[in-house]
């Protein structure tokens, strides 16, 4: 049974600004959904609409089959982890975790039992008497999650919960969140602007751009078959090489002189793309094009080569190549590359849809 259903959900502010025109999404029970997009894309607004912190101005929001548009946040049976954790500074860890249960009139014995169980699960037993300001960033993060878990809600909502942690801790907490969610099996809606976080956590991803879902799908769907140039550029790092091009009878024309052969019925302006990791170094005679090397970033396990296409036109087009292992090509020299057609991504330039 589907757990959370967004039907034609929209949000228009009183001043007329439309943050979310219309959104449809069906979340299955136990699913981990990540809302991802650049800042200002409406992902947090959408999450807060589900939480009941922002009003819904259009459409229906169903949780377990019940329409909850007009319900108070407290009555939606959701729990939320905030970006700054929003721990009550004047309450102990125990006080923070038990507050929601206390407000719902749960008996003291039951509260103690539940809080202790969750604290054990998160390794917070020793910290229950501490105040939030006496905790490290990672511990605060855990308390915030504990506070959400104690109530055993139908839906977890996460609003960029890892953005205040340092890089190392972020990776660790990311794994913990994923494991906990699997163990608890609670339906989860998670907002982030970090595509790595999104890819590693999600069962399914929703890529948002200007309030519109560009694509909804599994991480591999999005990586392999991005529906729009926006998704293509957003998912994957370094991001996909995208070029404005034309599709003619001779194939894809990247410039006046550079054609890539492709039999395709479509004609006209397109966006052509290939991921940096799908370009391969080949001999000159097998190459599709040459790259004039402008910069080399050696990361050890891989090497990123930045350059411009060498095709005779005055303004070369910038391209990134990702090579496994260490390489040390000379600056300003030419790198002969092949772009296998199986890895091409072609989008209609007008509709921005995948062809």
């Amino acid at each position, binding site marked *: 049974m589907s757990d959370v259903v967004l039907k034609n959900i929209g949000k228009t502010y009183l001043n007329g600004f439309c943050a979310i025109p219309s959104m449809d999404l069906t979340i299955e029970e136990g699913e981990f959904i990540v809302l991802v997009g650049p800042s200002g894309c409406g992902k947090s607004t959408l999450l807060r609409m589900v939480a*009941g912190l922002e*009003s819904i101005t259009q459409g229906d929001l169903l949780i377990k089959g019940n329409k909850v548009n007009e319900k*108070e946040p407290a009555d939606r049976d959701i729990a939320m982890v905030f970006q700054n954790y929003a721990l009550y500074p004047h309450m102990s860890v125990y006080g923070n975790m038990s507050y929601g249960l206390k407000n719902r009139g749960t008996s003291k014995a039951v509260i103690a039992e539940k809080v202790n169980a969750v604290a054990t699960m998160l390794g917070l037993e020793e910290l229950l008497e501490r105040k939030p300001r006496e905790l490290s960033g990672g511990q605060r993060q855990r308390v915030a999650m504990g506070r959400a878990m104690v109530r055993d809600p139908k839906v977890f909502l996460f609003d960029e919960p890892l953005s205040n942690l340092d890089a190392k801790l972020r990776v660790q907490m990311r794994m913990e969140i994923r494991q906990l969610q699997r163990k608890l099996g609670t339906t989860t809606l998670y907002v982030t602007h970090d595509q790595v976080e999104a890819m590693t956590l999600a069962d399914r991803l929703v890529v948002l751009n200007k309030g519109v879902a560009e694509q909804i799908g599994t991480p591999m769907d999005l990586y392999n078959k991005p529906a729009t140039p926006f998704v293509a550029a957003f998912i994957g790092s370094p991001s996909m090489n995208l070029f404005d091009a034309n599709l003619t009878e001779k194939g894809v024309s990247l410039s006046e002189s550079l054609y890539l052969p492709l039999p395709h019925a479509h004609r006209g302006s397109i966006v052509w793309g290939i991921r940096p990791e799908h370009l391969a170094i080949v001999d000159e005679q097998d190459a599709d094009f040459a790259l004039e090397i402008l910069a080399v970033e050696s990361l050890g396990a891989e090497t990123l080569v930045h350059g411009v296409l060498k095709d005779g036109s005055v303004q070369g087009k910038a391209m990134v190549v990702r090579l496994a292992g260490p390489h040390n090509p000379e600056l300003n020299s030419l790198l002969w590359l092949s772009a296998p057609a199986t890895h091409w991504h072609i989008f209609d330039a007008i509709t921005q849809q995948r062809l």
Partner: protein
Amino acid sequence: MIENRPWLTFISHATLMLGIALVALPVWMALVASTHPASAFGVGHIPLWFGSAGMETWQTVLFEQAGNGIDTPVWVMMLNSLVMALGITFGKIAISLLSAYAIVFFRFPFRNLCFWIIFMTLMLPVEVRIVPTYQVVANLDLLNSYTGLTLPLIASATATFLFRQCFLSIPGELVEAARIDGAGPWRFFFDILLPMSRTNIAALFVILFIYGWNQYLWPLLITTDDAYYTLVMSIKRMLSVNDGDIAWNQIMATTLLAMLPPVAVVIGMQKLFVKGLVDAEK
């Protein structure tokens, strides 16, 4: 908003408006009262709506005489109040700027002692030590003078403390840079410190102006000559005539005129005023 509870928002607005009305009530009554002839007050109650004698009363108190035993018109007392308020304000700011500058940017023996001596003045409002202060001013022959009105009130720990905080927040590199650029202490003071403290000075100005204008007990004690009466204290003199003879319309008009300048300053310079209040209590 967390809740869609329009009635809560409505109640908030309604409460605020009620609060505003209650706060404004006495001023409204004063305004109404000042528009009725003095005789209207004898009949048992203050009229609740405007009368027709307003212009006359206001003109009389403002330009001819304040009434109730005071022959001086309000505008003269206003001028006195202005002299006192500005004297206190500029005096406080000037001597506090200088002493804060000395305390923060120089090292000399007894520096801390000086700070504490100045600081002690913060502890004692003039009301507490009123009798001996009066005697001192009387001994110095400063009764009935502008100097007597302002000078004793311009020692200010608050302002010194505030400027000290402000100066301490100026990075040391700036002093070093100024010295490398060949600026001596005075150049540094006028070219760098003063411009950097501009908003603090302005904010403090608003607060101190109100403080100076509203002085009551001090001018009441040391002025016995009408020519030096300030507006706020004159009310007290006006109220000391016989109960039956009080011309309430004139008292109300004078009261409103006495409130007007500081209230106008608060409303007109609300941002600076709020900053001044917050700064002063840090």
